[in-house]
């Protein structure tokens, strides 16, 4: 028996497996959940501070409440737009075969390769009325709210399309066929039979989009700063997260802002949690009036020109609203006047970012996959159901609030930020871990447990049956989770700044450039970041695809 065999023996022992599960859960609680909601403890320990500086100060309260309402309005509108515009595209991807489908498939994911900081800048110079609009830009939007909505649609749209496509692909088409042979027109069949079946996908998509919009900080701040053409100040338009980001910055010089900062973070976390529950209940429980059928108009809409118009407008939406704003930055750099600059600080920042993203993704995979397996395999257990819900929490907590909370938590252990890289990694793990877990849970849920069971009766130990049977089947989803985690870490600004104020990562560097109005340099930096992440994604994809076949 070789050493490899001994290892397999060791980790297949029941005791080891129990210990490993316990370790995974402990990791999740200690490194993901507790740091994320640590800020809530502030409400208990320092309530008097909040009372004094926030609740009794009507101006601050107005600012907080106003910004939170705005954040929720934006998230709601964005989610609705994503759904309405995403459904036809998801439908095409799941059900139709056409030339260029592969290409379209890659296009949909492209915005994910762009760090939100770069995205915010790119979308803002495309849409917004700025003092010196670059050539070809639309330069039509002067309302900050509309600008932020447009921006949030760009980076939440891929999540919606992906979630809907995945669930649509999983729905057996024979139900719909049966409906049509029973005399329903295509639209009627889809609406009454298929749509109710994909509520689960809709919940996932809606939560992801809503949470993404509600929590995004870095891109939002950059877009607003670009629109205003300067650093943000107190009286500017603020969403909840941008207010946190702003106060977090300002609190370095003015510590009296800390209570207000904590209060708005706590409020956002609690509201987001409540909303998550409400959203889940509303979508799963409320019966939409879907039963009623209008045969003739629906028949009319199922034929001829209408489906073509629908498909065409879905693609136009993808190109104009999502893709062009994402990559407008390229045209900007091509048309602007080159500026000479010292690139070495950026390259340093870039290397740091990649190092962080790589380590974070590895930790997510090692700790997240076993967690996902545990959740799916003990689906009926109370503990696993609770974990399943808890895993979503870091996704819906605004990253600025999250970062602030993480910062407070970790500074207990390292008050002087003497290990800045470690702090950044730990912070990034908290909000990327759920992406891996969610993706793997989704994939494993779709696989008949009989495969692994059969492998076990054929003599495979749990680790062997995972590696040889389950892993090859869920590789795609693991990869998807890894890409999301990697790009999310690579692009994150708000949380990074909240943990280590002078962090040296690429997105933070770009925010600095925008704030200093070095647009050309910011754009160049963004492009480098985009290209590198995109190449990285392609390589990762190719690498894993080859192994599958």
């Amino acid at each position, binding site marked *: 028996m070789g050493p490899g065999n001994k290892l397999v023996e060791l980790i297949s022992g029941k005791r080891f497996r129990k210990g490993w599960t316990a370790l995974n859960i402990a990791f999740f609680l200690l490194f993901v959940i507790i740091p994320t909601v640590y800020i809530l403890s502030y409400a208990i320990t320092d309530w008097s501070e909040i009372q004094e500086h926030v609740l009794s100060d009507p101006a601050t309260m107005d600012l907080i409440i106003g910004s939170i309402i705005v954040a929720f309005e934006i998230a709601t509108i964005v989610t609705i737009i994503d759904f309405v515009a995403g459904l036809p595209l998801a439908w095409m991807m799941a059900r139709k075969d056409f030339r260029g489908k592969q290409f379209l498939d890659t296009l949909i994911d492209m915005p994910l390769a762009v760090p939100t900081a770069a995205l915010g800048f790119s979308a803002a110079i495309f849409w917004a009325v700025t003092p010196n609009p670059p050539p070809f830009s639309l330069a039509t939007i002067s309302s900050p709210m509309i600008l932020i909505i447009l921006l949030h649609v760009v980076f939440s749209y891929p999540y919606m399309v992906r979630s809907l496509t995945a669930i649509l692909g999983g729905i057996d088409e024979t139900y719909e066929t049966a409906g049509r042979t029973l005399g329903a027109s295509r639209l009627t069949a889809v609406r009454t039979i298929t749509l109710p079946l994909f509520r689960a996908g809709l919940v996932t998509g809606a939560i992801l989009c809503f949470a993404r919009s509600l929590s995004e900080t870095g891109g939002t701040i950059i877009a607003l700063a670009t629109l205003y053409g300067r650093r943000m100040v107190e009286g500017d338009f603020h969403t909840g997260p941008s207010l946190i980001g702003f106060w977090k910055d300002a609190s370095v010089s003015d510590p009296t802002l800390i209570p207000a900062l904590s209060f708005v973070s706590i409020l956002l976390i609690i509201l987001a949690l409540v909303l998550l529950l409400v959203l889940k209940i509303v979508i799963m429980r409320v019966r939409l009036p879907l039963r009623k059928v209008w045969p003739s108009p629906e028949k009319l809409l199922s034929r001829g020109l209408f489906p073509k118009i629908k498909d065409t407008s879905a693609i136009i939406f993808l190109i104009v609203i999502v893709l062009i704003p994402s990559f407008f930055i390229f045209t900007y750099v091509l048309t602007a006047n080159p500026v000479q600059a010292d690139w070495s600080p950026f390259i340093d920042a870039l290397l740091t970012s990649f190092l962080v993203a790589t380590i974070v993704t590895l930790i997510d995979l090692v700790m997240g996959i076993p967690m996902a397996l545990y959740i799916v395999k003990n689906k009926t257990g109370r503990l696993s159901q609770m974990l399943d819900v808890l895993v979503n929490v870091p996704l819906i907590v605004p990253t600025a609030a999250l970062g602030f909370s993480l910062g407070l938590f970790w500074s207990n252990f390292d008050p002087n930020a003497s290990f800045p890289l470690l702090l950044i990694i730990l912070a990034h793990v908290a909000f990327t871990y759920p992406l891996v877990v969610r993706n793997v849970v989704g994939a494993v849920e779709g696989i008949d447990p009989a495969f692994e*069971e059969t492998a*076990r*009766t054929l*003599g495979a130990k749990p680790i062997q049956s995972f590696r*040889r049977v389950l892993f090859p089947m869920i590789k795609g989803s693991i990869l998807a989770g890894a890409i999301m985690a990697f790009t999310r870490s690579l692009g994150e600004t708000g949380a990074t700044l909240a943990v280590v104020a002078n962090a040296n990562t690429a997105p933070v560097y770009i925010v600095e450039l925008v704030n200093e109005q070095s647009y050309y340099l910011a754009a160049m930096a963004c492009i480098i970041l985009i290209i590198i992440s995109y190449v990285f994604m392609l390589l990762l994809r190719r690498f894993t695809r080859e192994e599958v076949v």
Partner: protein
Amino acid sequence: MPSVTLLGIVKRYSDVTAANGLNLTVNDGEYLCLLGPTGAGKTTVLRIIAGLTTPDQGRVLFDGRDVTSLDPEERSAVLLSQTYCLFPTMTVADNVLFGPEIREIPEADKEQMLVSLLDMVRLSERANSYPKELSGGMQQRCALARAIATSPDVLLLDEPLRALDARLRIDLRRELKSLARTLGLTVIHVTHDQDEALVMADRIAILRAGKILQVGTPAEVFNEPESPFVANFVGQSNFFTGKLVNSTPTGAEIEDDDGRRVRARATSLPIGSKVVLAVKVGQTHILKREVTPLKGRIERILFEGRVVHVDVDIEGVGRFSSKIPVRRRGRYNVGDEVGIGWNRNKAKIFPYPENGLEDELKVD
């Protein structure tokens, strides 16, 4: 190869009891069919033997050794599931060699094993195909080769022929049985198809609502059912309910409320008790009206190929079915008034079931 023993197995899911104090012994090298209606708990029994489900109570013994707490991979009991579960990411050859691979069998031996197994299941040409490129029958054979390559002691088959078309199913019955015989495997084969069980099994265990009702050779369970349920589930029976009015060592008589009196085999039940008589459809004959107290009208005639199925409605008693040879088909027409009767030795008497006959015969 081991014997498999289940002792007092209980398994409850939130609202169903899948095994309710179940005892069963499968002998070394035996081919046992576990026959029961859907939802009887057949699959649960297999999963408990395989180690995939832990029973709430009771023990599983292999050759007298308690294996209840062993992991599936430590039992050498291979489960072949309804859907075959061929690993979609592996070729036929990789699927077959999955078990040997895990046990690190030397390359040369594996090669040889693969060749002979693929030859046996006639898939040599398809070694490099992926499961989705195979037909249902090929997939089934591939799964079988994969199971055997692991050289299991116990083979657990969960409705292995269910997804195949009728003709193929019949061919594979024979193959499967002779293969098991050659390799001396202990086989537990779950099925809801009584014909399959009768043809294939050394012994049949009838399972219902988590309990074994009867275990015996196919002839025993067919000819000597121990309950009306078994009488009906294995080869459909006709039933006649009445009071036992006469009982001698050579035979018994039953009379219903309308005074119809029919004869059956001897019974030890007390005279005067309420009983039910069961006689197999195939042993029920259509007679002239004059010779029998059971008179009725032909309701339906179904051509079944080699035999013709005739339903006769007897007013106040119910429907009786009979199978007649095809050559006699022309003699009867729907609406004819006929009589029903049987050889008294083919009719068996049971005490009337506690919850009524209908409940006793219910299959789900």
